Every structure is written in structure tokens, then in C-alpha cells.
């Protein structure tokens, strides 16, 4: 544990290892089990949890001790074994790998000297882990991409990436939940809405989830897109 300001504590655990699922559980635990009003936010990443505190009511030493005892309870309850071995939720995201919705698909295959089918096979052929949530609501950094498929980011980011775009950059892949700027290579698009504040669980992805991409045709992409809209309204 270390202070990262007068009002935040970084919990790094376990030492050095990547354990996104455990971090996600720990963050939830801290919020639920806290002395009410003490924790303003708990943000997990693969290597730990950032805990933001309301320090108006308690001295810094007392806040530190309270977080420490929360962590001890968590360890006692969950054991020392990382939850990450046991899995995490499985999420399947349908993707239309097609130039019409993934404008960089051709460029990527040309760059790597393979055909498009190979790019699709690599990308959809493995299970990814949500390593970090961030950048924007519902955005998950998924790792890791087949080594042969790794490319540096675009030199000039696009100013407008459509929502649902499936992209790769270096060892990561991701889906853009919302239209935004972006510097990754767009190889396909999903009709799935990855973030919707009107749902009970607004984000499809959580830290530690295991994610597969399932290729679909452009017709299926359009049909599913319509269905998704109707679901919503």
C-alpha cells in the first residue's frame, strides 16, 4: 500500500503479478465493506486498486489503518490464492470483419504479408483477458494479441472512429464503445452496444472477463444492429 496523494491509496497486489479479476473483486469488496462514506471510489487495474478516500471525517493515519484492515479481511476471506486461475465471466462479441466496417483490414493484411482470412483467424482464434478498463466508459483493453498480428499505433490518430469499431494496436485489441478519436487499426465492427447507461450493468465488459470474438457476416451485422436498436427503444 502507498499514498498517491493525501486522499488516495494505491494497493498493489499481489506483488508484481497481473491479476485483473482479483483486483476487480477487491475493488468491489472495498466499496461494499467500507465504513460508509470513507471510500469515494475504487478503481481496479491488472496490478492493483486505486482507492480514493473522503478524508474530511478521519485522520490520515486512521484512514490508512481502515484500508489496511479491509485488505486483511479480504485476504482472510478469499485466501492467498489468486481468483484469476478460476476464470471470470466469458463474453462473446460478434464481429463483422469486412472492409466496409473495418477500413484498415486490407492495410493490416498487406502490412503483415498475409491474407485477410489469416488476420481474421488470428484475431478471432484466441480468448482475451480484459487487462484494463478505461479511456472511456465501457472500453476494455484486451490482451494479448497473437504476436504475428502486432502493429504499432497509427502515426496520425483518426478524429472519428465509429462506435462498435474493433481495433488492434501493439499487443492489445479493443472495441470502441462510443464514437471518438482513436489511433488504433480498425479491422471490424460489432453491432453489440458495449455501454448503455440504461442497463442494470451498463458495461458489457469488466476487468478480468474472458472475451472471444465471433466472426459474423455483414448481413448478420446489419440484422443484429437493428435488433439491438429495437431492444433499446
Amino acid at each position, binding site marked *: 500500500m502507498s499514498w498517491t496523494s493525501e486522499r488516495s491509496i494505491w494497493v498493489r497486489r499481489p506483488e508484481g503479478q497481473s491479476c485483473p479479476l482479483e483486483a476487480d473483486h477487491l475493488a468491489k469488496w472495498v466499496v461494499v465493506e467500507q465504513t460508509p462514506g470513507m471510500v469515494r471510489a475504487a478503481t481496479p487495474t491488472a496490478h492493483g486498486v486505486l482507492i480514493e478516500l473522503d478524508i474530511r471525517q478521519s485522520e490520515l493515519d486512521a484512514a490508512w489503518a481502515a484500508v489496511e484492515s479491509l485488505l486483511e479481511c479480504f485476504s482472510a476471506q478469499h485466501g492467498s490464492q489468486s481468483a484469476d486461475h478460476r476464470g471470470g465471466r466469458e463474453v462473446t462479441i460478434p464481429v463483422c470483419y469486412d472492409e466496409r466496417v473495418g477500413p484498415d483490414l486490407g492495410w493490416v493484411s498487406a502490412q503483415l504479408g498475409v491474407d485477410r482470412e489469416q488476420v481474421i483467424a488470428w484475431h478471432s482464434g484466441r480468448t482475451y483477458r480484459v487487462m484494463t478498463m478505461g479511456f472511456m466508459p465501457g472500453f476494455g483493453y484486451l490482451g494479448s494479441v497473437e504476436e504475428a498480428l502486432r502493429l504499432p499505433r497509427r502515426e496520425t490518430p483518426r478524429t472519428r472512429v465509429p462506435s462498435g469499431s474493433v481495433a488492434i494496436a501493439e499487443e492489445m485489441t479493443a472495441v470502441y464503445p462510443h464514437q471518438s478519436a482513436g489511433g488504433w487499426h480498425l479491422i471490424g465492427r460489432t453491432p453489440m452496444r458495449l455501454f448503455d447507461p440504461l442497463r442494470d450493468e451498463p*458495461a458489457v465488459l469488466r476487468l478480468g472477463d474472458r472475451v472471444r470474438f465471433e466472426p459474423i457476416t455483414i448481413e448478420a451485422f446489419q440484422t443484429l444492429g437493428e435488433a439491438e436498436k429495437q431492444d433499446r427503444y
Partner: protein
Amino acid sequence: MGTIEVIEAGMLSSVQDLGRSGYQSVGVPEGGAFDRVSLRVGNRLLGNDEHEAGIEMSMRGGVFRFLDPAVVCLTGARTNDAAVEVDGRLMPIPHGVPTALGAGSVLRVGALRQGVRAYLCVADGIRSEVMLGSRSALVSLPDAGLGRALRRGDRLAYGDHAFQVDVSSTTEPAAIEEQISVLRIVPSMHTELFSQEQLKGLCVEPFVVADQSNRAGVRLMGRLLEGAIPGRVSSAGTMVGYVQVPASGEPIVLGVDGPTTGGYPVIGCVIEADLPVLAQCGPRERVRFAWVGRGEARRALLKQEADVESVRPGAVVGAIRHRPASSQRRVLLGCDTGEAEAGPGRSQELELLAHVSAVSIACGGHAGDDESMRHAIAGAAKHGCVIGAHPSYPDRAGFGRRTMAMDRGSLARSISAQLEAMARHADDHGVAVSYIKAHGALYHDVAQDVGFAHWYWARCALVFPNARFVGPIGSAAIAALRHSGVPTLSEGFCDRVYEPDGSLRSRHAGDALIADPEQAAAQAERLIHTHGCDLLCVHSDTPDAVEIARAVSERLRVRGLV
């Protein structure tokens, strides 16, 4: 429920409350007012819950039309240029003062100075849709379904119940310390990755705020840190105030809409107490960092909290204050009217009008109806009398002389309905309502309870923002409201006996009334000279009323007091 129409949105305006928590784990930033302290102060001045939403305006304000009456308060960055337009004339709106606006008012907020973010708070708060527990708009991602920046033509609802502001004190708002652009920082996540020279160097020269700064982050330009900058680090949670140093060496301070995780090294973190300073940093402004310890950071926060918590609801002022038509007169002689049924009582009321200069007209609470109001207004206009509204507890059976146990919401609705009826008839006759005088038990309850008086006047000012408050001479309410800048008239009774302590002798006592006209005139003089009375009252329902009014009026004329 009232409605605001956005006529111009300004540079960037959006609805913000104190933000949303609990969704950082899936990438949703906390959001909310960038300068939380200013929003909280605005809400507190209005008697709102601190969490109510207001409109955050950046760099330049917007133009808003209020389709319904409202009480508003501007906080945060200052402007010389905030005004409300009424009948084509612009009246300035003071900073940090609750101000009543009539229906149809157009509020214009111009260029901001001393900061770049101002807050328009509204009594009872803006009622935009709550998404994930907050009304805060995530303006950078309109697509995310978490609100967007305001646009011309948008309509916003505010307040969802009759005003229930409980104004319990008249403490002046504490002056929130003038902020200078020093950002105090404490060590953070990767401070130890930087060299001592780099850590010191951060505080040597000021940085300049870049134009691309926004709610997600304040970008700084200036002297690059000496030596190698640590490369990317593994992703970790981030928060508002984090000072990230990307490869360029020019720091970015994360704002309320910043990403929830990041991989740039964090050299330090702006202390919570200085986040309002960060929020008010404008493009090309210079800011300086200063290292402090965590203990000092917390002490600064506690001091700021104490300042914020000392802010109590302020008295509401009308946006427009002009002198009543009768201001050249030094003292008004008034009577209560519109209380009698057609018949002998009413003819005495009419006779009184020849001697008085002000009439307080019953508006349906304890007595009176549309017909009697029209009649009284016409009579007053004919005799050149100043008109006042005379609302009461809704109690016709008890003639408004009993304190009614009713909730504030119902009382607010009743007072509003009475005053609105009065406003309608006054408008029809083309005359102004110059003052509001409560009747009977309401008059006494308001006079004695300062908190209640503020509450009551906030309701009145919604309908008549320019009217004067009338209360008994020497009362707590007169002192408190006058102190808060509300125009007042203190009233004394010519025909009632005063106790030595200045209170009225009870009506139950046998000798409470003065029947002798000359005695009444002498009392009137005393009230003016020793009690600073501005409005003398003659009761219209006593047998000697006309004679008393005649004698007092004559005495005032002789003494040159009218």
C-alpha cells in the same frame, strides 16, 4: 416545475452536479462540476441540497429564458456582464446573491473573468435526467448516453415541488478565499521515478495553461523537466488532480472527465483543496506548483470545508429594484382594505381612501375575492394611492388571525396563489404593487422568526421581485431583511396602544385601541420620530377609522411629513 429555455449556450455549458461514483471500474469518470466548491456554495446560498445540479458555463456564459419564476444564484468565475432583461431593460445580477426572477426573464451571462467556469444555480436545482446516479453531462462523449453540452433550444426543468427552502439563518456568506493560481501538490504514484532535480524543477518556473485544456485535463506548457522522462508505466487507476508527465515532459493535470486509468508516470497530485483553483485555470494563464506534505493538504481541505459549511442561505433580492412611485413622500399612511363585503363596511373603506396614501389589499387568504380586489385597486388608483398586497394564512373562517399548522409547501402554494391573483388584477389596471404586507397571524409569525421571514420573502419575491417588505417597527424580520438588502417599510399602528417595550398591547386587553383621533395623530408623530416608521396604519374596521385617518393625515401634512 419550472422551465428554462436555452437561447444561447455560450462556449460550453452543461448541467453538472457533484458527479457520479461507483462506475470508475468500467471507465466512467467521476465528472460533475469541475469547481465543486463553487457549485456547493451556490446551492447553499439558495438553501438547496449541495448535490443539486446547476449549469456550468465555461469562458463565456449563455443566455437563458426563464418561462417561470425562479430564484437563481451565480457563483464561480466572476463576470461584469451578468444581467437580466426585463421589458427590454438590462438589470445587473450580483455575484453570489440569490436573485428572484419573474416569469419571462431573460438572463444573459457574458465573458467570464477571475476564472473560466461559472455556475448558474437555481432554487431546487436543475432536473435533467439522472444517469447512473448523477445528472452530470459527460460532454466529451455525447454518444455515451450520459448527457451532452447544452444547445440552443434545449429546455431544462427545475424544481419539482413548491419551494421548501428552509432559510434558517441570515449569516452573510463567508468570503471564499480569493484564489491565486498556485497548485499545491503532494507526492504520488511515480514520484520516486523522477530525479530530485526534476522534482525541484517542477516548482521553479510557472507553466502556461494550453488552449486544448478541457474538463478531461489541464495541459501545461513550459520548461521541460531536465533529463530523461520515465517511460510508460503499467496501467493504474487515475483521479482528478493527478499530474501526468508524458514523453514530451509537459505535464497534464487530470480533470473531472479524465480517463479512469492511465499509463503515464504521475509525478505528483494536486491537493483536493486546490482543485477549484485548477478548475478555474484558463488558457494562457500561468500556474505554479508547490510541494506540500499530506498533513498540510488535509488541513487546507478542512479549512476550505469549514468555509463552505459556513455559507448559509442568503436573502433573496429582486433583480430589479426601482423606487416605489411614492418615494418622494416621506411617510405613507395606509389602511387595510378589500376585506369588507359590499355594504356599509365597504363604503367606510371607500371613505378612508380620501385620507390615506397607501392601501393594503386582501387577496383571498383571510378575505377578499376577484371582485373585491378589482374594486379596491380601482378605488386606490382613483385616489392616487400606493398599492400593497395583503396575503394571509388561508383561513377565511378565522379572518387570518390564527397561526395555521400547515406544511411549508402548502403555505408556499397558497401565498403564491394569493399574490398571483393580485398581480393579475394590478396588471389589468396597469398599476404596480409597491409592497407586500402579511395579514394577521402571518404578519406576526413572519415578524418574529427571521428564518421564516427569509423563507416567506423568497416566495413573495418570486411574484413581486420589486416590492418592499412590510413588517412591524423594531421587529427582527425588518432588521434581518434590511440587512440582507431587501427594501423594507417598517409599519406602526396609529390606533393601537404600544407597550413601553415597543410591542403592541394585546387586542384582548380592554384598552388596546386608541379611539381618539388627536391621540392617534400624536402617536403617529411619535412612531415616525422615535421608531423610524415608514408606513402608518389605520385599521379600517373600527368605528372611528375615518376620523382617525383624517386627523393623522392632517397632522402629517402640517408637519411636512407627507
